[in-house]
């Protein structure tokens, strides 16, 4: 490892950071006298350009990861395959949330907002690639701190401050859990490298520290469960989604989710591929059990407890998320509970994870399309909220009269979230569940898939509650709602993508597959 490698491996993150600084300089230095509208637009466009530059950097970087050791066998940052897919997704979704900013009025500090978004996105890129506990933690903190600030960005809104405080307290606690779990892992295995740790779990030390290992797994699951808002670590989500400014909420709901799930994919992949050839170099340095050593009576290793805990989180999230969403009267809170439910479905895919890349691809497909749809949903909510001053269900009354286009895209987004074909949400669910059943056709995964499908039937009810107000119930106020052209174009583009990818589901699959080396 030398600085050239380091620079090369972190090229996209560097591009984002430079863009963040550039936005600050331009906004604070050159545009101090300009109108707010102008400053917001320029800052957002610079941010989008930064994302574009980072995408370009991602292309240049190719499959160059970063490792240390004599032959670089201990990976710090991975690259290529699913990591590249997730990173591309993060950058595109970030750019979309920045475009939603153009129409927003919650802040006067446009430059700072965009800079924080870009830095948080850099954190997202880091954790998507990270293969080392320390890098994971740094990336998570970079992302999380950004998110706390973004949540609090509407300085004149009490709700925003409250949401940020709740998010911060829960988040700090979760980070502490995670770090504590990491410290146990390091203590047991003597390494911070993911692959080496997982290999060492099969070694001598870990056998004797089995209870500690389980504690560590639970703590890590708690920390990461918080990031993806899985029950019972979900309490922050409804408040944050409700209080945060709309573009920030969209960012939390999409980009942060993609990055966190990419990290979970890294862990699950590493856990399954422990004895693969590419880790053999690491194997040499691991301690092997000396013959004749007494073994603990039952030793589950890493995979079984990990799978168990993910299954429990998944089932709890699906059930609680969907049932709690039924009772919501605020659309943002409804979206928060639906996000919890969706996290539950994805966790099911992670719990029953395949050795081949079928599960990885299904999860990426799900999380990318979910992120895209959620940004769209928040976009509509933010427009309605500005016009009516509320995100209550009743704010959507008569939307089809007040802005037919907005109502139509809302229809597309919500039906896609409910998983109605031929929209992309259906294929995402279908791929994921087929992957789960492909891994194991036993009664338990089957029962869980049945539960997930039954729960998505429940979800149709609350999505229809919103659509019912938009299309069916009479309007109280028929004055038209106007949306900024840029917002409208972004929303229409997302809706078109949701429909197109739904009609041609092979497109996105092919795109994801194109990141894998052709055999």
């Amino acid at each position, binding site marked *: 490892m030398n600085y050239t490698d380091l620079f090369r491996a972190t090229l996209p993150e560097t591009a984002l950071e430079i863009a963040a600084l550039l936005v600050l300089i331009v906004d604070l230095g050159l545009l101090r006298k300009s109108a707010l509208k102008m400053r917001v637009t320029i800052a957002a466009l610079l941010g989008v350009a930064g994302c574009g530059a980072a995408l370009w950097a991602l292309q240049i970087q190719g499959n160059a990861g970063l490792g240390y050791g004599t032959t670089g066998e201990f990976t710090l940052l991975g690259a290529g395959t699913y990591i590249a897919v997730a990173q591309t997704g993060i950058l595109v979704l970030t750019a979309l949330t920045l475009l939603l900013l153009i129409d927003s009025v919650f802040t006067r500090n446009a430059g700072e907002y965009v800079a924080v978004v870009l830095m948080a996105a850099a954190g997202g890129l880091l954790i998507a690639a990270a293969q080392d506990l320390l890098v994971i933690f740094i990336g998570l903190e970079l992302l999380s701190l950004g998110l706390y600030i973004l949540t609090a960005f509407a300085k004149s809104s009490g709700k925003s401050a409250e949401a940020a405080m709740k998010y911060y307290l829960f988040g700090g606690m979760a980070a502490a859990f995670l770090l504590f779990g990491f410290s146990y892992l390091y203590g047991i295995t003597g390494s911070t490298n993911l692959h080496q740790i997982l290999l060492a779990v099969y070694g001598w030390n870990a056998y004797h520290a089995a209870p500690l290992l389980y504690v560590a797994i639970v703590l890590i699951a708690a920390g990461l469960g918080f990031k993806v808002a899985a029950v019972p670590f979900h309490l922050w989500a409804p408040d944050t989604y409700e209080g945060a400014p709309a573009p920030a909420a969209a960012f939390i709901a999409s980009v942060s989710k993609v990055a966190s799930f990419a990290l979970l994919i890294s862990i699950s992949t590493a856990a399954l591929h422990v004895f693969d050839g590419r880790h053999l170099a690491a194997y040499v340095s691991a301690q092997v059990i000396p013959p004749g050593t007494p073994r603990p009576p039952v030793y589950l290793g890493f995979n079984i407890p990990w799978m168990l805990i993910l299954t429990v989180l998944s089932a709890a999230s699906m059930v609680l998320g969907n049932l709690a969403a039924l009772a919501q009267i605020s659309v943002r809170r409804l979206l928060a509970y639906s996000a919890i439910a969706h996290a539950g479905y994805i966790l099911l895919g992670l719990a029953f994870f395949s050795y081949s890349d079928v599960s990885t691809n299904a999860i990426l497909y799900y999380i990318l399309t979910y992120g895209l749809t959620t940004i769209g949903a928040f976009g509509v909510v933010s427009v309605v909220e500005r016009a009516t001053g509320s995100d209550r269900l009743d704010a959507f009354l008569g939307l089809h009269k007040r802005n037919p286009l907005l109502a139509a895209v809302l229809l597309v987004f919500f039906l896609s979230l409910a998983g109605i074909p031929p929209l992309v949400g259906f294929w995402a669910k279908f791929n994921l569940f087929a992957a789960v059943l492909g891994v194991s056709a036993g009664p338990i995964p089957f029962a869980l898939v049945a539960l997930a499908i039954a729960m998505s039937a429940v979800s149709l009810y609350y999505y*229809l509650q919103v659509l019912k107000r938009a*299309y069916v119930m009479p309007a109280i106020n028929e004055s038209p709602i106007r949306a900024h052209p840029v917002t409208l174009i972004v929303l229409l583009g997302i809706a078109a993508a949701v429909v197109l990818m739904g009609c041609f589901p092979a497109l996105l*699959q092919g795109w994801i597959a194109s990141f894998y080396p052709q055999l």
Partner: protein
Amino acid sequence: MLAWTIYLSFAGALAEALLPKGKNSLARWLALAIAVAGLALAVGGFAAGMGQGRVIIVDLPWVPSMGIHYLLAADGISRVLVLLTGLAAVAGVLFSWNVEVRTNEFFAFYFALIGGVYGVFLSFDLFLLFVFYEVAIVPKYFLIAIWGSTRREYGAMKLALYSFVGSAMVLIGLLAAYTTSGSHSTSLIDLAHAGLPASFQMWCFPLVFTGFAILAGMWPFHTWAPTGHVAAPTAASMLLAGVVMKLGAYGCLRAGIWLFPHGLDPWGFSFIGIGSWRDVFALLAVIGIVYGALVALAQTDFKFVIGYSSVSHMGFVLLGLMTLNQIGVTGAVLQMFSHGIIAGLLFAIVGRIVYDRTHTRQFADLETMHLAKRLPFAAWAFVIAGMASMGLPGFSGFVAELQVLIGAWMVKPWWTIAAGVGIVVGVAYTWRALQKAFFSDALPSAHFLEHEHDPEHELAAITWPEVTGVAMLAGVSLFVGLYPRILLDAIEPAVKALLAGGGQ
């Protein structure tokens, strides 16, 4: 040619959605043109397919990594049901000629529904079929919730949730079949040949069958049907009873019986005379026939009578499917067609011709209105439709139900006897409805007498779309009743191939 029915309907839905508001007359004529063109394609496809077996229309890889095909094909059963959809679509447009609120949106949802229905009947890939099946759910919700009448939001939500739960059950079964078969193709033809293990079929069959049968109105999952039908606007209840319930029955046949033939095998033990899933579903079908008819007899709302009669008639379809013999299943398919036409006609008379003029469907009110004198056309149309619905010889219902009963007799005579009771009660409720709604001589209310000669109190005259629609539907039912071979020639070979397993 048949595939264009699908594209035409979706293109029509899009065109209607983009039509400027307020051009109601344009929206109506455009809708009629689309529906008639669809019917022409369906008739053309039916005529062209005469004497042919299964014809593959399109076969493209859709999701290659999962073996999902965009596979449209048609056999005799599909062609008959596509024809039914074409007829129902035209009739539906004719009977929604008086929709004045958000007309273009009404027809947009209407054609989205029709397109989904055409798609289901032509899909020979399990997932394509499922996709079209779900596409049909959402427009139903909006059609009922926006343009419906009595308790429309309740009826619409109930219908949507029942459908979605049913389709969730189907999806679970389909995912299981897909992973179990390991054939890496979801084409129905491949799956039917995949040789799924009998023990798997034994539990997957009831799941898929029940999922589809919910939409076919199988007792005890029928409760969405009466409330949904009553809440729906006329055209939507015509489509619901006319074609959407057939989607369920068709799914039972195409995905249930074809893919999982061993699911119907005996369990090896029997409990109170029930020894297989076949006995279970046949029992439910018979209960549905009798129960639907008895409940229809007790209704005070005219439309509920028709709603429950649909449950009863769909029981014949399910009973026919469970006979698993040539004549019974043929009868079931013919009953799908026949009930589609007759139920459409009945709902049109009750919902459009009577209700839109009298603004009541309560027998107590209708009795005082002397509709036989004031709306003779409606009365006579209902006499014809009622006769067809009772299963009088000369109408399509007679041929269909007779075949089902013969098929059932060959398996278990008591099925036929019990279903026969349903037919007798059917005569009674039709008679009762006819008498109460049209031919009662109860004294008019004082209020009515006071205003009898007010010009604004006159019932609006019968319009040409109504006459055309009634003539078309009654004519088709009569024609098929007199010359059933025209459909049977298409249905019989297809049923034979389907019952033989893998197909031709």
